[in-house]
């Protein structure tokens, strides 16, 4: 069995992260008071619907938020509690230090690998460049390392594929190359932003298996962003459920599925179509649609869609955020264990 979570050192701690997009239509609070830990060798799942802020979270850690967004509060601590502790939120996004972290300590896997790959260069060129950016080795050595990386991510005949252009590869192989790129700097933290959403189900299974294997081999702290509850159940150790820029529930994966504590989590789990359903079985639904982050409802942001809303309270007051590292729900109905 896996060791208890507390035994693993925290690789990255996010505390009270707030991100704001200042736009003509008004300020959009993309993230508010987001806290969680990434631990070596463990997988944190971040799940939520569009606009919940899961991708913004990933991009803030790497300091690559698109303008006009910026971090307005909170800390992103690399190696917290150690002498090497760095607050990424305080670094200049273009500084040498941040560039060393990006793609070095922290690797990123994109939903569509083509966003990370240029069509004008061969796969090998791009991985070699990434390798050499983070280590001081000769071109020949880097090429060998690139071939090794491609083999590691399960690309058959890496010696020949290294000279292929990205468009010559299938979606699954491209995503493998994307993972190889993310591994080029030998990271100990990997952020995977919907890594399998664009893939077919059999390819998805292959990529998930690959991620699982790599994580076990390299004791990587993995942050897996997805909207798919199946992927969450299959892959993660702990889960943060996000809604409109806040973490509304944080729990170990088994507990989350067995006894979800936030009404949103409960509703979301019931709304997932299942391969085990009875013929023509209706799904439980959540009324309405996710509001735009710019039009966030007062009080608990979920209250207009919540079946268990407490009139007068949820509509006016924001439930307290979940303290980091503790399972719980940001809901007035939640009784801390």
């Amino acid at each position: 069995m896996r060791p208890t979570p507390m035994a693993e050192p925290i690789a990255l701690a996010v505390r009270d992260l707030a991100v704001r997009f200042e736009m003509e239509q008004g300020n959009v609070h993309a993230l508010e008071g987001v806290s969680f830990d990434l631990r070596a060798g463990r997988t944190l799942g971040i799940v939520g619907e569009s606009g919940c802020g899961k991708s913004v979270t990933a991009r803030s850690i790497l300091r690559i938020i698109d303008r006009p967004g910026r971090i307005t509060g909170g800390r992103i601590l690399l190696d917290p509690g150690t002498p090497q502790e760095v607050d990424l939120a305080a670094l200049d996004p273009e500084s040498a230090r941040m560039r060393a972290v990006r793609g070095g300590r922290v690797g990123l896997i994109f939903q569509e690998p083509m966003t990370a790959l240029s069509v004008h260069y061969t796969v090998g060129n791009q991985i070699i460049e990434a390798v050499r950016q983070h280590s001081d080795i000769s071109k020949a050595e880097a090429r060998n390392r690139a071939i090794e990386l491609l083999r590691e991510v399960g690309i058959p005949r890496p010696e020949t594929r290294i000279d292929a252009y990205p468009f010559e590869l299938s979606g699954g192989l491209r995503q493998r190359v994307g993972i190889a790129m993310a591994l080029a700097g030998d990271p100990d933290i990997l952020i995977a932003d919907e890594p399998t959403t664009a893939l077919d189900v059999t390819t998805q299974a292959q990529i998930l298996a690959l991620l699982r294997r790599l994580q076990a081999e390299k004791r990587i702290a993995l942050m897996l962003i997805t909207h798919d509850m199946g992927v969450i159940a299959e892959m993660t150790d702990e889960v943060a459920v996000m809604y409109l820029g806040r973490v509304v529930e944080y729990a170990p994966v088994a507990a989350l599925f067995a006894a979800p504590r936030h009404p949103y989590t409960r509703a979301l789990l019931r709304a997932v179509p299942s391969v085990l359903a009875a013929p023509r079985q209706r799904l439980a639904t959540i009324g309405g649609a996710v509001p735009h982050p710019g039009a966030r409802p007062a009080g608990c942001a979920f209250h207009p869609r919540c079946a268990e809303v407490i009139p007068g309270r949820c509509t006016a007051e924001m439930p307290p955020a979940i303290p980091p590292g503790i399972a719980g729900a940001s809901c007035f109905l939640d009784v801390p264990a």
Partner: protein
Amino acid sequence: MSAAAADIGATAGQDRFAQATQLQLTWWRFRRHRLALISLFIVALFYAVAVFADFLAISDPHATDARRSFIPPQAIHLFDDGAFRPHVYGLRGVRDPQTFKLVYTPDPNRKLPVTLFARGYDYALFGLFETNIHLLGIEGGSRGDGIFLLGTDQLGRDLYSRMVVATRVSLSIGLAGVTLSLLLGVLLGGISGLYGGWVDTVIQRVIEILRSIPTIPLWMGLAAALPNTWSVTQVYLAITVIISLIGWTDLARVVRGRFLSLREEDFVVAAELAGASQGRIIFRHMLPSFASHIIAAVSLALPAMIVSETALSFLGLGLRPPAVSWGILLQDAQNIQVLAGAPWLLSAAVPVTVVILAFNFLGDGLRDAADPYG
């Protein structure tokens, strides 16, 4: 951004946004483009000048007077002895002691009062109403007196008045050229995009060939072929055709590209599956979807047309005197010796530069605003 904007409307229930047409959305977006908005104003101003050219002109742009040649720009003095009495100085002929040439210089002792809505030369407003009222004029004064805001040329014609009238010619020739290009471009581009196959191939190759011909020699050849006996109007029309000969290719490409991408668009397929006729699909679904793109393309094509006409006329291949256009005005500034003595002749370059910059910014703004959904 489009999805986000949609959701703001949906949740906040902003009826204004929800019921906004495509045109309104474009306008709202365009308004945010400060430079384009200013440019729009400038372009509008230029066209207003073009429409009211004769009204704004002070003296007859074709009237020559040897005594008035090369008079430097002349300011309007607003105050006379502390009282508000706008006036200009009259001219006095002085014999140059060295060359014995008669030189006319302003005479501060002869004050000619400036009035609004003065009577001047006869013209037809909008080509319809015979009148002789002009915005500015002088009272009294003898032959040869006048207001020369930008000075005069060798033949003693008022440069300001000529420039105002040239604005009309230059801008309208651009407009006419673009209209012709647009007709050709939409028609041929549309056929190319809609029917595809060998028709498309032929049209595309023709476009490529036309574009591969260096434009200046082509224009020179064509313009040189215009018979000398043609009237000003005939030359004007011929020049329009010549400059739009190349211009339409760009528009045809835009139109073809839009048709090709729209044909695959789900809502077009939906209309087809609903049983809509080909005509309805083109006119109800496809054309409105890229009308804004065409407007943007046109506003970018216009300055090219204006420059083409100016260049041709400057080289003496385009319009010919007595027609007045910016290019023809600049023709006078070709001679360095003339220019050294009368640098104000170069002022015709200013409206050319300003209007072309304005059109470019306007086109950029329109292009950005054209697709509120993209």
